[in-house]
């Protein structure tokens, strides 16, 4: 009996030990599974790249394919047909980036809680309510009606799935092992969710609800002063004074156009710094008669990087550049004949309609003198370790009702439907597939016709010496001011009035100036016959870029590189001459005086080793805090005037009602604000020196640019990267944000096309691969590498670290 009990006890003990070590508990990975030497995390270490590549098995080819890897681990794929080309692209991208690919889709579609638990719930619910998957499904249905696009997209999906099929626990990317889940099959829908997530990131930032509230408290006059639509200092993408060869009759705004509404909080917004710069230089302005294209997308700095560099070669294609893991083709890149790059066009393509339901069933809503039906969708949000959450979302003909009695609504339980251009069906994929094989400027311009969004400023240059820029995307026709504020969903006059025809879109071809450029600024001055708007046009980078290009002649590669890495702070250049003279230097002590004298002699370049940028940024932040402190008392969602407006107001107004600091009994003047802020700023810098045990406050240490792993795992991230620049500076590297790919292409009639690039990360997304942190250091220093780009794989001999031919079996 005793032995039986012992046996049963030991059996239970052994099996429960195995069970415990094979399962995850409170975020600790299953230790036995994770730590064992056979297939645990140890086997994810990759020191020898060749061993990684030896596992490649392209088994569903139609013909033979040659794959080469250069020393930066960029794959060069040479195939005999397009299906094999995209199949291999899918497979090889998954080889380096599978986890990231899937994670990004889960994040976009609002399914993260399934993997990481309740901490992602809030985010997931927002994604569901925005209807990202709904939008992806519509674009998918439209895109697959084009059979050629469909075929290529499917080959790419097959490539990813063949890679996934090859995996077992041992070869799962490390993050799967850490979070204890498995990769799922890839689908076409996922590729479209990726595109919608780009739309979400780039075109889904609006302030309509905040501005509706601000308008109601500030009144129209004050609102327009603090949040102006345009200023004459702006250098728009299409230069002021450009004549338009068409005329349209303006739509009169309806009588009732404004509301007085507010919401306590609105859904999370993407970084306002999501922007970029690009420019093209014509041969007449370059030193050696080449045209140049430079493109630098500024996005969140993450690991694995948002971009994956590829070179794709088939009889139809020979293209290279940055691709998005999860989508076929090249997004920002070049081929032998042309080069192109995008910056965000920023324009407001999201509007909010207040919806009035007929009754509590919410099945019908008012529209004119009719009642329209809603469509009810129940979303299940799975949460790891908890019960699923079911969210009911009602769709109107505008789009999903994001805010309602169940979600973030105000006390009146009002309903707001989102009208977002990304919810419309579209075929933007075609644009990239056409761009990748464009031969001249006409090919490019006609490829852009198919591009609906997220609206982008496409800059391009060709071997023939043409340059151009087109603001591509689907833009609604609006009456003056339409969509700046919440609209009335029951009033048909508040509907969008169709779309701007492609022929009327903003585009420049070979302008006299010899260059085109964009950096998320206003597209055009107010003479454009259509109404356009964004609350978020950038006020500094565009001007700096324009002025640099205007002043330079005989431009060489080195000049282009210098512009991309330009650290000049236009903001400081405009603000300091106004605020510095206001500082009462007699009241400064010795150390404060030192700060003052240093910044007085600063040349406005935010270089990594200077201390002046740290002082300016801190000082300016404090000034804005004090100046706009009235806003902090507001009870609903709001925004504050931007730096440009702040500078203008300080410059033009000796007296202004917002100058007073409401937390004190005194009435402050602007001089008080500037002086107090200066002292507080020097104080906080001194404190910083003390706590960080540093003698100086060099900009790089103070700014602390970091590139974080998507799960924010510290040891998978890079901290304190040495890089200059900041937000509103061409070299836009701020704390967590910046140039995610720096590319320069030189096209010359008599020479091979040459390109240089660098990005903050590595091709391999595996933290256990020695390429994982990749070129971060070179990126920070602005050291570019010439990209290996040959029409034939034979010319790459000696420059690649791996080569193999795969055959159709």
């Amino acid at each position, binding site marked *: 009996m005793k*032995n039986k009990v*012992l046996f049963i006890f030991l*059996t239970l003990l*052994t099996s429960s030990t*195995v069970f415990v070590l094979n399962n995850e508990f409170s975020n600790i990975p299953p230790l036995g599974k994770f730590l064992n030497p056979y297939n645990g995390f140890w086997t994810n270490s990759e020191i020898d790249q060749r061993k990684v590549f030896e596992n490649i098995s392209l088994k569903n080819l139609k013909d033979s394919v040659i794959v080469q890897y250069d020393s930066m681990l960029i794959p060069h794929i040479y195939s005999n047909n397009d299906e094999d080309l995209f199949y291999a692209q899918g497979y090889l991208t998954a080889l380096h980036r599978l986890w990231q690919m899937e994670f990004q889709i889960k994040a976009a579609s609002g399914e993260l809680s399934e993997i990481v638990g309740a901490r992602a719930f809030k985010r997931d619910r927002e994604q569901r309510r925005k209807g990202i998957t709904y939008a992806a499904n519509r674009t998918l249905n439209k895109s697959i009606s084009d059979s050629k696009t469909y075929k290529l997209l499917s080959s790419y999906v097959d490539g990813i799935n063949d890679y996934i099929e090859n995996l077992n626990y041992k070869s799962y990317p490390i993050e799967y092992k850490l979070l204890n889940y498995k990769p799922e099959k890839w689908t076409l829908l996922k590729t479209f969710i990726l595109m919608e997530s780009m739309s979400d990131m780039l075109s889904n930032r609006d302030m309509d609800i905040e501005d509706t509230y601000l308008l109601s408290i500030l009144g129209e006059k004050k609102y327009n002063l603090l949040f102006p639509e345009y200023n004459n200092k702006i250098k728009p993408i299409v230069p002021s004074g450009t004549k338009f060869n068409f005329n349209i009759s303006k739509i009169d705004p309806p009588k009732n156009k404004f509301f007085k509404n507010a919401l306590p909080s609105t859904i999370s917004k993407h970084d306002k710094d999501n922007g970029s710069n690009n420019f093209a230089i014509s041969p007449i302005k370059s030193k050696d008669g080449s045209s140049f294209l430079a493109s630098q997308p500024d996005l969140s700095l993450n690991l694995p990087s948002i971009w994956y560099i590829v070179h794709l070669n088939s009889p139809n294609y020979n293209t290279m550049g940055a691709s998005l893991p999860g989508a076929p083709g090249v997004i920002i890149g070049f081929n032998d004949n042309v080069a192109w790059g995008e910056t965000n066009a920023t324009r407001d393509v999201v509007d909010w309609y207040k919806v009035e339901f007929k009754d509590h069933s919410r099945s019908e809503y008012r529209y004119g003198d009719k009642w329209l039906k809603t469509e009810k969708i129940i979303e299940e949000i799975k949460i790891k370790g908890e019960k699923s959450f079911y969210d009911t979302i009602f769709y109107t003909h505008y789009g999903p009702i994001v805010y309602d009695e169940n979600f973030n609504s105000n006390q009146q339980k009002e309903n707001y439907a989102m009208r977002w251009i990304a919810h419309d069906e579209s075929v933007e994929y075609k644009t990239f597939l056409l761009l990748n094989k464009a031969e001249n400027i006409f090919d490019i311009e006609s490829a852009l016709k198919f591009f609906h969004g997220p609206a982008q400023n496409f800059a391009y240059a060709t071997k023939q010496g043409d340059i151009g820029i087109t603001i591509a995307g689907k833009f609604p026709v609006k009456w003056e001011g339409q969509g700046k504020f919440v609209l009335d969903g029951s009033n048909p006059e508040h509907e969008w009035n169709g779309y701007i025809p492609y022929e009327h879109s903003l585009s420049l071809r070979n302008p006299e100036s010899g260059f085109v450029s964009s950096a998320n600024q206003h597209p055009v001055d107010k003479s454009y016959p259509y109404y356009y708007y964004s609350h978020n046009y950038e006020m500094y980078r565009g001007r700096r870029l324009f002025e640099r290009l205007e002043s330079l002649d005989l431009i060489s590669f080195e000049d282009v590189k210098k512009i991309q890495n330009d650290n000049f702070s236009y903001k400081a250049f405009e603000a300091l001459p106004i605020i510095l003279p206001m500082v009462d230097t007699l009241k400064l002590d010795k150390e404060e005086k030192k700060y003052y004298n240093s910044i007085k002699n600063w040349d406005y370049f935010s270089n990594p080793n200077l201390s002046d940028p740290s002082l300016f940024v801190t000082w300016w932040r404090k000034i804005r805090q004090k100046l706009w402190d009235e806003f902090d008392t507001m009870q609903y969602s709001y925004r504050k005037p931007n730096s440009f407006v702040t500078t203008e107001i300080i410059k033009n107004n000796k007296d202004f009602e917002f100058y007073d600091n409401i937390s004190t009994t005194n009435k402050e003047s602007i001089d008080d604000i500037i002086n107090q802020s200066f002292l507080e700023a020097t104080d906080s810098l001194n404190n910083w020196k003390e706590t960080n045990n540093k003698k100086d406050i060099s900009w790089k240490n103070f700014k602390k640019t970091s590139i974080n792993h998507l799960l924010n795992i510290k040891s998978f991230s890079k901290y304190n990267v040495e890089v200059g620049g900041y937000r509103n500076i061409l070299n836009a590297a701020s704390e967590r944000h910046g140039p995610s790919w720096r590319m320069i292409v030189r096209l010359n009639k008599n020479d091979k096309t040459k390109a240089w690039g660098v990005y903050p990360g590595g091709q391999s997304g595996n933290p*256990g691969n020695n390429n994982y942190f990749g070129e971060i250091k070179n990126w920070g220093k602005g050291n570019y590498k010439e990209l290996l780009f040959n029409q034939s794989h034979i010319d790459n001999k000696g420059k690649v670290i791996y080569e193999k031919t795969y055959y159709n079996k």
Partner: protein
Amino acid sequence: MNFILRILITGISTYYISSFFPWWSIIFIPFILGLIFDDNYISHFLSSFIGVSVSWFFLLLGMEYQTEAILSSKIIQILNINSTNSLIIISAVIGGIVSGLSSITALALVNIFRKKKDKRDYRFN
């Protein structure tokens, strides 16, 4: 002798387990040895523990050497462990405990039948 032989069998067979099997397949050899060899619980537990943990220790040490601890140095920060050596030891101990438990479970199973047999022998006498 019996003890050392068991360590060698466990150690060598554990070293060559394929990555296609789940990690807990390390329990089978100690289990079989527990069935076959006549010894006490402590001795069985120790022989299996030592066999598997030493085997894992060397497997991991070899991998660490080859990969320059590129990944384990990052993992220790996630698991809050102070060094990669500790991580290797923890892993080896985990393997050891599981296999040790497995071998004494087998022994307990044998003992159920052995005692019965003993009793019968006694009666015959």
